[in-house]
């Protein structure tokens, strides 16, 4: 699984950082930052799905590979 962040869509709602801090950080302005290269280890797949399905701006997407 891979997780993708569209920084143009992100408005800093901070939901991904709250739900999946292993995958997302926030910068000094509160904007989301993807940690690593977006590759999701199997134990974090649920958290990645939560981050995606709670983003009000649809800025996070998930792909299979």
């Amino acid at each position, binding site marked *: 699984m891979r997780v993708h962040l569209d920084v143009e869509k992100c*408005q800093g709602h*901070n*939901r991904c*950082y709250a739900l999946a801090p292993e995958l997302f950080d*926030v910068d*000094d*302005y*509160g904007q989301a930052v993807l940690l690593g290269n977006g590759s999701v280890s199997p134990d974090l797949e649920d958290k990645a799905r939560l981050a995606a399905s*709670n983003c*009000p701006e649809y800025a996070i997407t998930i792909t299979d590979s």
Partner: protein
Amino acid sequence: MTDTIDPTISEPLALSDSPENAIAWERVPYNAADYGPVSDFATDFDHADKAYNPNAPEVWKELRDSGCPVAHSDRYGGMWTPITHEAVQDVAYDTENFTSRSVVVSHARPGDAAIPAPIGVVPPISSDPPFHNLARRLLLPPFAPKQIEPWEDEIRALCTRLLDEMGDITPGDTVVDAAIQYAQHIPVNVIGRMLGFPEADEALFREFVHNTLETINAPTADRQENFQKLDAYLDAQVQDHIDNPREDLTDYLLNVELGGEKLSQEHVRGSMVLLLIAGIDTTWSAIGSSLWHLAQTPADLERLHDEPEVMTFALEEFLRAYAPVTMARMVAKDVDFHGCPMKKDDWVLLPFPAANRDPRVFEDADQFIIDRESNRHAAFGLGIHRCLGSNLARLELKVAIEEFVKRFPKFELAGDVSWSVGQIRGPRALPVRILETA
């Protein structure tokens, strides 16, 4: 939905243009008699109708079910209210056709002597692109998650103190007011401390908030007088900070630079107005509505008490189901929007709380599901004006509910609830009987 407007209600209005050198102007002559009870929310919408906030979810459902995505009203010189998530989102994302120049609907519209777009009177909430982004980036850092997290202990201590001050509690007998004795004090105390204002002035801050948001049907001259009082208060606070510099948000605003220069006095004061007004009855309303829900839903109260970790999802569900904030825009230029002929200077309400109840986006939208896992709610807005204080609001709401539930594992409604009036929705009096104490 222009085809649903009853022509007998919508008589042609004599709409005037802004006179020169006006801070505020009225599009139609103010007439208190125009503001009686609403006859039909589809064609005569008024969010300041006393029946609206107590019954808002039913009003939205009725409008959606009758196929009305955008309601209209002749009140306030012309106002539109999108109800569906799609229509609300379309306005929020469209900064070309909709200006943020004024975000609180009232009889008065900002005139050319008020600070014009793209800056507006209270930047950045009143600002449009491209200036908006500059003003917003100045204020984002002090409200970023990692700057807000350290406030948790202080907020918890404040909540504990407020609970202590309720005095001796006899379970099954004692009635406390969760809005008046608890919710209303939390955000006002925190933002007052962040700005470095005297704690003794908290009641005054609530008065400023009330005057700004709950008296929109008052004559324009009265509202202008109240705004002048607020400005005078803030000028005195600014002077005090110049005389006695200290590390707080006011000091930050006085020293931060935009394009190599310090902010103008109007910009500093405007941003202070925003922080003071926007941070208070919004969060106070969210805390009150959440406790109102728990007072009537023993199963949710028990779950939250027994499984505190459910708060991760419960917090967002409180925000979705009981979002307190409806914003507003003004139409920037004539536009056809979802079939509605919108005219320049018409008001447009942005009821994010209604969008949060749209069944096309949220499964069982009118059900409160305490562990709802997928929740793209718009309580803090959509698009570039996402609530600047959302991280602080979320922390205050979480801690306030946690501490109340920890102290009072069981409580129930104990009388009539009174609701706010206008764009911010929440209980102003919330009597609850304590059934069990920790």
